[in-house]
Structures are given as structure tokens and as C-alpha cells.
């Protein structure tokens, strides 16, 4: 099993798309950092930017990478499996590791590690950009870093489960573009529409779809950008409920994909 995981990690680190995805975490995080500091400046007339001062703002600043994770971790999962079909390397993979469930488990592990890496890049970006900038605006750095215990576990756990979500749909769909559109377009656009419709027609909080479930797991950090608060403050699930729902959003398509696609003969 260890060998299969190490092989998957070599595959991942030798795919340019994976590095592009990882690098995109930096600008997306900076974008959100700007947003958080602008939002903090709203309360101070005459200032475009201000240091964070409420607990929520401090957590949002530390977890500014969540939006990047929401977009990029599923892509990482999609790339991990669909790249094999796109470049026909899946045949070699199955010849080298004939037990296909072992291949899939190795891909889960590799995706999880790269998703965590995305999370770490976002945290490094926060450390390099957000904290000095916040301090320059008069903020106290320790007030932000003290929130690490509340922010970092949820951030990294959501990264892993969002990566699994992408891997699941990648296994199910196989086509790279279609899988990316399905995961990203589905969670960012289609989900917003469905949530709005559910609220307008049925007065129901549709909070178990991937975006909202990921937001619940990530906690307060996700509310402002893509999570619950961005859509009008719907009631999110508890963090652990969000985690379980996200796990299901990854495992169910993964299991269906395994039985319908992954086990099929390849040429």
C-alpha cells in the first residue's frame, strides 16, 4: 500500500496541472485577505483598509485561504484521477497495481496530502501577507494567531474532504473538463441557485450541499466568502455534521465511480 501511495505522489508531483492548481492558492488567498481588510475598513469612515478587530474578522483573516481551498482542492482530486484517463496512463497503473481498490485508496491518500498542501500554502500566504499587513494597519498579530486552534483544523479537514469530493466525481465522470465543471460549477453556481430556490419556494435551508457542508466544517472562516453568510445567512450544519456530509459527498461518487468506471476493462 505504501508503494502505491508513493507512486501516486510521484505522479501528482510530475503533473504541471497540479502545480498550477497549488500556485493559484496564493492569489486567491491574497484576494480574500484584501476583502477581509476592506470589510474591516467599512466600520472606519475614510479608511479603505483597516486591521481586523472582531473575533470573526480575526478568524476570517487567518482562514483567508478557505475560498482557494473550496475551488482548488476539488480540482486537485479531479486531476489525480482524470489525468490517468486523459493520458491513457491508467492502463499502466492497473498493470503495475492490479488490485484496483488499492489504486483508489492510494489516490485518496495522495489527494488528501496535496489538499493539505494547498491548505498550508494558504496559511503561509496569510503569514507572509495578511499578518504583516494587518500589523501595519495597527492590528495585533497575536490576536489573529491565537485563533489557530479554532481555524486551522477545520481549514485542513475541509481541504481533505473537498479533495475527496473532487476525486469522487473525477472517478465517476473520467472526463477532466466535465469533472471540473461539475465539481466547481456545481458547488459554486448550481448550489447557489438551488439554495436560493429552496429558500424562496419552500422556505428551507438547503445546507447539506457540498459548499454549505464544507462551510459548516470550516466554521466561521467560511461565512463571508462562499459559505453560509454569503448567501444570506442561512443556518449551517454543525461542524461535525458538515464533516460527515462532506465525507458522504466524496465517498458516494467514489464508490459509484469505482463500481461503474474504475473496475471496467481498460485498453
Amino acid at each position: 500500500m505504501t508503494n502505491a501511495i508513493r507512486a501516486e505522489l510521484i505522479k501528482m508531483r510530475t503533473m504541471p496541472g497540479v502545480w498550477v492548481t497549488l500556485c493559484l492558492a496564493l492569489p486567491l488567498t491574497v484576494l480574500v485577505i484584501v476583502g477581509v481588510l476592506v470589510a474591516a475598513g467599512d466600520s472606519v469612515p475614510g479608511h479603505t483598509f483597516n486591521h481586523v478587530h472582531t473575533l470573526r474578522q480575526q478568524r476570517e483573516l487567518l482562514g483567508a485561504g478557505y475560498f482557494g481551498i473550496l475551488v482548488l482542492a476539488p480540482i486537485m482530486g479531479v486531476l489525480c484521477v482524470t489525468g490517468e484517463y486523459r493520458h491513457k496512463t491508467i492502463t499502466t497503473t492497473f498493470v503495475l497495481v492490479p488490485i484496483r481498490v488499492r489504486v483508489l485508496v492510494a489516490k485518496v491518500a495522495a489527494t488528501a496530502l496535496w489538499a493539505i498542501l494547498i491548505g498550508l500554502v494558504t496559511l503561509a500566504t496569510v503569514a507572509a501577507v495578511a499578518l504583516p499587513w494587518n500589523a501595519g494597519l495597527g492590528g495585533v498579530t497575536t490576536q489573529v494567531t491565537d485563533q489557530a486552534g479554532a481555524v486551522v483544523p477545520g481549514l485542513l479537514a475541509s481541504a481533505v474532504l473537498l479533495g475527496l469530493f473532487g476525486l469522487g466525481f473525477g472517478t465517476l465522470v473520467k472526463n477532466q473538463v466535465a469533472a471540473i465543471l461539475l465539481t466547481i460549477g456545481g458547488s459554486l453556481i448550481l448550489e447557489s441557485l438551488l439554495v436560493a430556490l429552496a429558500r424562496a419556494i419552500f422556505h428551507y435551508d438547503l445546507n447539506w450541499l457540498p459548499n454549505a457542508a464544507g462551510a459548516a466544517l470550516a466554521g466561521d472562516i467560511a461565512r463571508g466568502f462562499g459559505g453560509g453568510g454569503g448567501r444570506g445567512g442561512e443556518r449551517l450544519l454543525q461542524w461535525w455534521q458538515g464533516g460527515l456530509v462532506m465525507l458522504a459527498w466524496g465517498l458516494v461518487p467514489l464508490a459509484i465511480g469505482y463500481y461503474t468506471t474504475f473496475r471496467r476493462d481498460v485498453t
Partner: protein
Amino acid sequence: MLEATSFHPARRARAHLRMAARAGGHDVHRVEEVLDLVGLRGDAKRKIGGFSMGMRQRLELATALLGDPDVLVLDEPSNGLDPQGIAWLRDFMRYLAGEGRTVLVSSHLLSEMAQTIDDAVIVSYGQLRAKGTLAEITAGMTGRVMRARTPEADRLSGVLSQAGVAFRRLGPDEVAMDGVQPEQVGPLLATNQIVLYELVQEGGDLESVFLSLTAGLGFGDPASTAGAEPEPQPQPGARA
């Protein structure tokens, strides 16, 4: 060994082999050895997307050799190779066999294979048609088959039937006659004034053997054996 298209184009040769070594549970130190074996050490840092077909075949061979196998199964290894690549592959397969390995090659390039192999197995439509050493398989074929190309193939078929000569229709204007010599066929054709475009005595090469053994089994006219005697089922023992 798989076809030489199963590579990620952005991956470098060494990385591909390291990945394959890990996945197959082989010692990663073998990577450098097999790179040397197939002559790709100097290109190990290059991306596979920039490799020629010959280099990809070498890399595929290197992948297959990672586990230092006793038996190598190569499927159409010379597909798409240039003459230099084919010559290299031929020498390399002989080298591997010389090391005591068994190299099983499936190929449709029979004249090429005839220069390389020791033993041959001819399979057609799932049936074993012949097996044995190359010499055994081809020995009985020299001079056995005459191939005629004529615009009067139907009339020729009738004449051959009457004369009791076993034949097979290879196409609308081609007939293969088994177990005859030119001295028998020539007078028969002249007597019956059959126009000929070509009359060839097939040689005893592997390709001719294959064509002879598989004629009428779905290639060309499906009714090609009509009127012919049942096709002999060659056995190596009978040929040797």
C-alpha cells in the same frame, strides 16, 4: 509491455520509471540500470512528450525490465519504429534472450520477426495453426504453394477442381494452389488458355507460411474456399 502511448507527456523519463518502480514494488535503484540497458540515460531528464516513438518504446521496455523478469511479453514492439529503431529492437531482444530470458513477441510484421525469433506460434481466429522452431515451420512450405493472379479466376477454379488440385481463392482475381509445382500448373493453364497476370511460387518465409495457413479464414472473399479441398491443418511434426 504495453503500447508506447501510455505516458504522461509532461513526466520525465526517470520520474516515470521511479513511479513504475514504486508502484510495482521494485527497487528504485533498478531505474538507473534499466535506463542504461535501453540507452536512455542521457535522456532521463527529458519530458516524455518530446520523445520519438523509438525512445518511447525503449522507455516502455525499460519499464517492463524494472522487475528483472524471466519472461517478457511484448505486444507489437516494433510498431511505428524507424529502421534504426527496428534494428535496435531486434538486437535488444536477442540480447535479452541471450541472458536466458524468454521473450514472447506478438507481431504482424512477420518478415521482421523471422529475422529475430527462434520459435514461432501462429494463431488465427483463436486457433493454433502452427508451432515450432522457425526452421520447422517454414521447411515444408518451400515450393508448396503457387499463387496465380488472373482475370479468369472462376474458370481457373473450375479447371483446378477438375484436375484435382487443392486451391484457395485469395481474392476476386487471385488463387492459391497447394502442393503443386510450376511444371504441373503451367501446362494446365496453357491447355485451357487461361490468361495470367502473375504466377508466383511462394517462398518458405514466415509471411508466406502465415498467409498460407490463414487464407480463407476471413481475409478477402468469404466464399473463397468454395470448391476447394478441405484446408490441411499443418502440424509442426508433419512439417519438420
